[in-house]
Each structure stands twice: as C-alpha cells, then as structure tokens.
C-alpha cells in the first residue's frame, strides 16, 4: 500500500504494532474519562449538553481550544508553512488569538449573560425565542447542520486515513473511521458535555506538550552535530564537553535554528520575507476575518459560550487566548518551515510533519505526534457530534415533530441524536462524496455568514424577525452560489470579471456575504416593524 505508507510519512511497518497500541491506549483513556464523567452526569438535558453551566477556566479554555484545533494544526498547517513560508503564524495569531478573543467578548459574553437569564442551550433556541419564531429557529439550526455535517465527516475521513497510514494498511480505512466513531459515540453518548470537556482538556494538554517536545527533539538533533562540527574546527576536542561556558543550551539551539534556515537563505532568499504572491494582504485579512467570525457560529464553539460557571472564567480565558495560540502554532508552523530549510523532501500526498519527525526522532515519537493529530480530530468531532445532536433534537425535532417531550425523554433523545448523527456522517464518509467534501472545506465561510446578523440581533433592539430571515437567507444564497456555480467571465465596462469566483481581486467572497448579511438585517429591520410576539427585552442584560 504505497498510499498508506505515504500517509504515515514512511514509518517502518515494523513499528505498526507499537503505533496502534499508542492510539488504542489513547482511545481507552478517553473512554475512561467519559465513564468517570458519566458517574457525575445528571438526568436532564442541561447537564448533558452544558454540564449544568459549570465549567471552570482550565477546562473551558482547553475544551474550546482543543475543539478549535483540527488536523490543520498538525498536517495542513505545517504543510503550508513548508511550501509557502511561515506567514500562517500571523494569520493564526490575528484570527484565533486576537479577533476570536474580541468576538469571545462581544458574542460569547453577551450570549452567556442572556443564557444565564433565560436558560438557553443553543443559538437557534435563543434567536427563536427572542424573535418569537420557530421558523427562524429551524432556519438557523438547518443552516448550521448543513455546514456542520460534512465537516464532521471530513474529521472521520482524516482519522480513518491517519490510522491506515499509521498501521501501514493493517487497519482498513472503513475500520479506522468506524473505530474512532464507535469510541466517540461511547463517551459522548455516555457523558455529554462534561465527558467531552474533560477529554478535550487532556487532548489539548497532550497536543501542546507533544509539539514542544518535537521542537526540542528536532533542534537538538540538528544542533548536536553542528556544534560538534564547530568544535572540531577549533582543533580542541575538549571544547566538546557539554555545558561549557561557550556551548550553552542557548548556543546549541540558536545554531540549530540558524542551520535549519541556512538552506533557505541561499536557495530561496524570499521564503522568509514577509508576504509573497500566496500570502497577499488580501489573503491574510480575508482568511483571518472569515475564519474568526465563522468559528463563533460553529455549533460546538457557540454552545461553549453558555457553559462557563462564572464571568471570571470567561475573562480569564479571554486574556489567556493570545498566549495559548502563540504557544501551539508558532512551534507547529516553524517545524514545517525548518523542514523546508533542511531540504526535507516530502512525497506527493504526504504530510511534512511525520516526514520531518521520521528523519530526526524515533518512530514511536512520530507515532505519538500522529496520535496527537488524531486527538485534535477527535476533540473537534466529539464536540461537533454533541452540539449537532442538540441542534437537531432541540431545534428541529422537538419544535417541529414532538413539541410535548419531557425533560427525561429529551436527554435520551439527545443520546439517540448523537448515535444517529455519528452514524450518518460515518456512512457518508465511506463513500467520500465530492460535493460534501466541498461543503466541508468551505464550512468556515458558511458559518461566517451567520455571525453579523446574530451580532446585530444581540446589540440592536430594533432588529426584526423579517430582518433576521432576510440577512441570513440573503448571505447564505450569495455564498452558496459562489461555492457551487462555476466561475463565469463577464464583461463589465471593458474589464473582464470572473463572476461566481471564490475571490474578487484577491478578497474572499465570504467577506462580501458577511457585509450583505449585515446590510440586509439592518435595512430590512429598519423597514419593517416587529411583531407582537417578538421580545427584544430578552436580549437586554442591564442590571436589574
């Protein structure tokens, strides 16, 4: 299986047993944590979905952080740094470290305040109640599930492929995807938000440690021989003694870093220069803005705005956010950049990080990093399963099919929802449908379209139901047409413009959709009057 060997970064097949043990051991730990959380889980839906709004700083911070991370951190991100340069660190810092933190306050804290007062568990529920509209609730839930479903599917596909690569084909693709799905159903189904949040915390800490150990390992592997070579040049072997005043750890590390970049300085001097034909200002701004706003509307992130046990938890998480982003993404993307400097060649279709680690670290450690990547995928998908199921049961099934469901029955429906959602995405991931993959890869832009209408509703009491529907439907239509219709060149005033292309002049069309959504929400609200069943005071959080 050459394809699977590539995915594993060419790890020797003999190690496959150890690697599988690492992964299965990790899955069992997650399940165990889920079981412990299950013993503490009450019967109601609020406890199941929101852990009774009781999460503290460490758990909230890490569950949100781990949920944000996907295979991108370990695979696609370092690949981009390897091929295009390390500027993605800037995109990531601006997007997740700063813009998301600001939105964490503007959207998250406001939602938390409203949720505390009225007991909301999902965004569609909150909007539906405020605007007195089950249809708006259904629309927001429907739009969210439309973008979420294929995104969950992508994570299962990624996990399946990673396991194929890890075991050199001993575990087939469907088997890998099924294994991950079953484990997730077990601990999400059992323990709900508490189990997910606890496993996420472990996964987040695990990823953070693994990436820094990888940096230290690679640098000492490069720096050791380099310092040795420098020492030999002085014709004084005693200088090689570790820990002399000259060869301090700082010296070894900086020598290693210089060597890692030396290849780039001679072969590709513009690689490390800020900006390129790939990293244009338009690209950096579009990507950072669209993803930051999109992230806040992902059900699994948005639902976390309801779960903090106090305002102090939200404040501390907000403050620590930029540092946490820096701590994870700088090392991850630098590893990709160093691989370029060291002249590592990555086979077509393989990921740079496993290849680099395969070169400089033992195979079991490379396997541990792949387990870290699987942790990232699982911590995203378990949260998506739980939140997707809550949108489905609370905002679609209950209001439209069975309005008189009891709280106990709803908690069981929720678990049924997790099983149904996970099974459906798993079955879809087996056929790898092209259209769904396209939807999944454009999910951030799709969710970003929801953010501005929601912000208008949160802060402007004169927002009306008709305005919300117009803003959400209009922006979704604009964005969907650009995702699905083929680009068509048209002549406008002598200049040829490619209509329905994903970007205009380098700017992502999702930005235009966001502006349209805000304009429609404000404009139509201004032209219409609120119905008698709309309750603007529901979103007022003034001291009372």
């Amino acid at each position, binding site marked *: 299986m050459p394809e699977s060997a590539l995915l594993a970064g060419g790890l020797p097949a003999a190690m496959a047993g150890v690697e599988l043990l690492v992964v299965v051991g990790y899955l069992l730990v997650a399940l165990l944590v889920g079981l412990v959380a299950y013993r503490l889980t009450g019967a109601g839906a609020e406890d199941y979905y929101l852990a009774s709004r009781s999460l503290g700083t460490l758990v909230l911070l890490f569950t949100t952080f781990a949920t944000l991370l996907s295979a991108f951190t370990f695979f696609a991100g370092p690949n981009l740094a390897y091929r295009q340069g390390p500027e993605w660190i800037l995109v990531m*810092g601006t997007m997740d470290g700063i813009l998301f933190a600001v939105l964490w306050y503007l959207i998250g804290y406001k939602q938390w305040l409203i949720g505390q007062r009225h007991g909301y568990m999902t965004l569609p529920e909150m909007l539906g109640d405020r605007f007195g509209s089950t249809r708006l609730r259904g629309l927001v839930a429907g739009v969210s599930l439309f973008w979420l479903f294929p995104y969950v599917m992508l994570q299962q596909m990624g996990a399946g492929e990673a396991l194929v690569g890890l075991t050199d084909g001993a575990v087939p693709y469907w088997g890998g995807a099924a294994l991950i799905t079953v484990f997730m159903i077990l601990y999400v189904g059992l323990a709900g938000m508490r189990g997910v949040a606890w496993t996420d915390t472990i996964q987040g800490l695990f990823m953070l440690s693994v990436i820094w150990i990888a940096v230290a390992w690679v640098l000492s592997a490069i720096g050791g021989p380099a310092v040795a070579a420098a020492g030999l040049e002085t014709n004084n072997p005693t200088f090689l003694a570790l820990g002399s005043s000259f060869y301090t750890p700082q010296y070894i590390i900086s020598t290693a870093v210089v060597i890692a970049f030396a290849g780039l300085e001679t072969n590709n001097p513009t690689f490390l220069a800020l900006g390129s034909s790939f990293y244009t200002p338009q690209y950096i701004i579009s990507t950072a803005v669209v993803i930051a706003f999109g992230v806040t509307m992902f059900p699994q992130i948005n639902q976390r705005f309801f779960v903090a046990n106090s305002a102090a938890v939200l404040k501390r998480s*907000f403050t620590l956010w930029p*540092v946490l982003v820096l701590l994870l993404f700088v090392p991850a993307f630098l590893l990709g950049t160093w691989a370029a400097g060291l002249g590592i060649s990555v086979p077509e279709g393989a990921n740079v990080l496993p290849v680099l680690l395969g070169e400089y670290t033992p195979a079991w450690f490379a396997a541990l990093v792949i387990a870290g990547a699987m942790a990232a995928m699982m911590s995203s998908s378990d949260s998506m399963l739980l939140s997707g199921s809550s949108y489905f049961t609370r905002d679609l099934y209950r209001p439209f099919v069975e309005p008189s469901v009891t709280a106990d029955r709803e908690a069981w429906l929720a678990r049924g929802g997790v099983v149904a959602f996970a099974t459906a995405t798993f079955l879809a991931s087996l056929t790898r449908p092209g259209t769904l993959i396209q939807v999944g890869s454009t999910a951030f832009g799709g969710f970003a379209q929801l953010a501005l209408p929601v912000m208008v509703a949160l802060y402007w009491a004169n927002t009306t139901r008709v305005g919300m529907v117009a803003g959400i439907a209009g922006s979704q239509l604009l964005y969907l047409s650009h995702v699905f219709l083929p680009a068509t060149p048209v002549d406008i005033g002598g200049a040829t413009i490619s209509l329905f292309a994903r970007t205009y002049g380098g700017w992502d069309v999702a930005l235009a959709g966001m502006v349209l959504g805000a304009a429609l929400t404000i404009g139509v609200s201004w032209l219409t009057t609120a119905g008698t069943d709309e309750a603007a005071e529901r979103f007022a959080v003034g001291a009372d």
Partner: protein
Amino acid sequence: MNTSIRAVGWLVAFAVVVAGAVPWFLWGNSQLIGGLPLWLWWHIGWMIVATIVFAAFTRHGWDRYLGVADA
C-alpha cells in the same frame, strides 16, 4: 474619567491591537534575528502586548459596555 472618552479609548486600543498583529510595515522584510524572521519576533511580542491589553480590559472595562453594572 469621562465615560465616553474611556469607551473611545478602549475602541482605539482594540483597533490598534487588531491592526498591529500583522507587522505591515515590515512587508517584504526578510531580516533574521536569532535565526527567526524579525516579523515573527514582532508578532510574538505583539501577542504578549495583546494579552496585557486584554487583561487590563477585563479589570477596567469588561462589564461596563454590555449594560451590566460594574460592581
């Protein structure tokens, strides 16, 4: 301090924090310091500045602007 001046101050502070995360004035610069690009050092420093600004905001501004009384 006047409340609206204070609000504008926070707005400006956040705008500066957002705008400065990418060192636009170093566009095209490829100078290395200690093996890492100068622009990366700027970014690392800037994220620490952002954390300090965020910490100050949680102490002095957080509840003021969402209608919740600053206890």
